[in-house]
């Protein structure tokens, strides 16, 4: 079933206008646009601030340990005298980078396995679903400790572990959607027209589940940022001296610090909160914009 050149051109122009429509609809959603704007600012500052700052991320400023915010150090210094402002934004690079990488990986694995399972059903479905259960039931901590030792402790290993352990969620959602879509009229029509399995999955089913995937992916961005925070709590996150938002807010894990040293936890707290909030609102906006049924 090869496509003719004309068909390809026709399809790509159709896709063009489809995504243009998505963008148009998204632009109309002001909450989503504000979120997008904030996210872009956060991302840009994470890129620019560490380059522009007069302090280095790992630089210990002599005699400046534990200082409250001042004109010298806008967000104060940590307990060994590193500038918290530059560390906050450098930490953002790591935290956001890990979140993007993990989400991308888990979505690819999850969508492929979920749609294959949902579409083919039968033994394929059974095997993939049982596999997903195996992955869901793994003791997270033990896996973290073991894999980090076997593969060496690094950010790459962390991304790998998080992605491999979190794909079942998205796979199950994709499968569930496909299961119900499969029974719908237009899929019957596809089958009647003799359209190939692959094309059915990727041109007809996939766009229909995309809305769910987008919602899931934004939630996942948020949850990876949080997981990283929890892992720092248990000492299994990114190794110091590399800062991450999780490592930074971890410093406030003490009632006394929480009370007396707001500059330890409010900046990373605000960053974590803002990025999670914006990812979710943007995700909702995207979802509304992508799903043609959502048009007002």
């Amino acid at each position, binding site marked *: 079933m090869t496509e003719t050149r004309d068909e390809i051109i026709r399809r790509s122009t159709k896709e063009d206008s489809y995504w243009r429509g998505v963008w148009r609809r998204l632009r109309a959603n002001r909450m989503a646009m504000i979120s997008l704007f904030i996210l872009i600012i956060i991302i840009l500052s994470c890129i620019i601030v560490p380059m522009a700052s007069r302090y280095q991320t*790992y630089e210990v400023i002599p005699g400046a340990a534990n200082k409250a915010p001042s004109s010298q150090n806008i967000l104060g210094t940590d*307990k060994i*005298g590193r500038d918290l402002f530059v560390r906050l934004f450098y930490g953002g690079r790591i935290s956001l980078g890990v979140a993007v990488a993990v989400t991308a990986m888990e979505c690819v694995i999850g969508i492929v396995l979920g749609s294959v399972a949902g579409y083919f059903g039968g033994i394929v479905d059974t095997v993939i679903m049982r596999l997903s259960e195996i992955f869901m039931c793994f003791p997270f901590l033990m896996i973290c400790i073991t894999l*980090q030792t076997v593969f060496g*402790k690094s950010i790459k290993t962390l991304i790998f572990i998080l992605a491999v352990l979190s794909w079942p969620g998205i796979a199950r959602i994709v499968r569930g959607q496909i299961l119900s879509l499969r029974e719908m009229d237009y899929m019957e029509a596809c089958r009647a027209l003799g359209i190939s399995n692959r094309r059915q999955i990727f041109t007809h089913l996939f766009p229909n589940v995309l809305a769910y995937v987008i919602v899931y992916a934004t939630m996942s961005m948020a949850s990876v940022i949080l997981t990283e925070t929890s892992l720092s709590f248990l000492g299994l996150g990114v190794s110091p*001296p590399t800062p991450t938002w999780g490592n930074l807010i971890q410093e406030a894990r*003490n009632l006394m610090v929480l009370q007396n040293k*707001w500059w330890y936890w409010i900046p990373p707290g605000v960053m974590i909160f803002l990025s999670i909030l914006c990812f979710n609102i943007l995700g909702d906006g995207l979802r509304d914009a992508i799903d043609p049924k959502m048009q007002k």
Partner: protein
Amino acid sequence: MKKGFKTALSSLLAVAVLAGCSGGNDGGNEGGEETPVAGDQILKFGTSGFEGVFNPILSDNVYDSYITALIFDGLVDVDGTGEYVPELATWELDEETKTVYTFTLRDGLTFSDGTPLTANDVAYTYNTIKEADYAGPRTAVGAAIADINVIDDKTIAFTMTDPSPANLQNFTYGILSEAYYAHDSFEALSALNDKPMGCGQFTLKGWAPKQYISVVPNPDYWDTDNIPAIEEFQMLEVSEDTLLGAMQNGQIDFCQPAAKLENVEGIEALPNAHLISYLANGYTFMCFNTTRPTLEQIEVRQALLYALDRRSFLMNEYGSLDLVALGMAPISKTSWAYPGDDELNAYEYDLDKANQMLDEAGWDQRDTDGVRMKDGVRMDLHWLVYTEASWPGTLSSMAYDSWKQIGVNLVVDMMDFNTVAHETMDAKPGEKNFDIYTMGFSLSIDPDPTGGLFDADAYSEGGFNASGWRDEHSQELIKAGLTEFDQEKRAEIYKEWAIIQNEQVPTAIVAYRSEIWAVNNRVHGLDDIGVYTDFTELLGKVTLD
């Protein structure tokens, strides 16, 4: 639409204000003294981590051991200066062999169920440790004792495997009742762990796993001067994160938070409690893998120490130099064997000196990243940092920055404590996969280093020395320290030994740490808590307002 965003911001601000404001008013009038718990003669200790193993020969957790110390008494005890003193028994050492200790029990000793405590119970306790299926933490005690000989109801002789001035530490463990603890299997013995019966100051009233332990005074305690006046002592499971909050509200009377700046400041800010601090019997150390080409030269190890601002580290981590002392030599600063600071090199922070030493040691080439090289080897160091405590992270983060300035590339590998121990001590020689690791040790009362970090014979699979450094003179001194029973002469031997270690630094002592306690002002009689005085020794005299 903008309103939504404003809502987001204002809810966030609300949280910030909530926490920020509440920070300001805690110095006010909400202390425990104004709101005493009604009619309460219960002393409450907050901690986390007890397991409920109330058997002196099985508990291997400091909190369980506090409880066994209250319920059981041992043959000997340690006084406030770190000397062994009689508890249930006096002893005599056979001067000729120096291996036979003969103990004579006090008169009129009984267990809390009224049955008499005899030499047979003592023998039974130590024989249980020596049983084949004994799977507890005291097997070293069993191995140290060669033979047990009950002479009469009140007299018992122990023959030790080797003569050693440190042998008395084997006799501090609580005595079990033969009749009560009779068992046919290790499981059967273990089943009595949460139904303890001893001859101590207290008896168990009740407990719930990971929640609380409650003990009440034993009215028939042999030491009538030390029958507690308090009605009850409770050990409550309180997370480290909330200890001081519970102190502030008077829900616990005392606790031992980690000796850190935040906690010191927190205790000092409490209106209803005060701080107790003292230098502990222990040290934190950093061990160099001297079998690595990067670390085999003394000059390199010394240079790394010169390039580490330990004084700033101590200030940053502990908040005050009153709380901690700069590490010098592998002998506790609280010990009679400590040589004195004048004899030792403190390796004061000096980057120029460090640079110069590395140049002289042949590490004078630099690669494109500015990292030093010698014979094609780059100065890359992996530091294993465990995450259960905060100080290794702080120290390694400081080293990351300052060593970079002398051309040393540090990679910090975080892992859990068990993994660090596995990679360093447990691994076979040659497979010990680290350059540097850090840990903290509590020490026994005797300064003997045999089998420990500095004993070259312990460089083995499962041995405690991971540095791989060996010096025959140092080994001879360790042996000499064990055959000499005169304390002054031993101190001379350990002084010479400490100076060698301080100069060669196969393992550097980072700091001698303090321990801190927060005690509610309503509690009287706990202020003598000190390096050799557990609070368990003081409960007989404690009174509560």
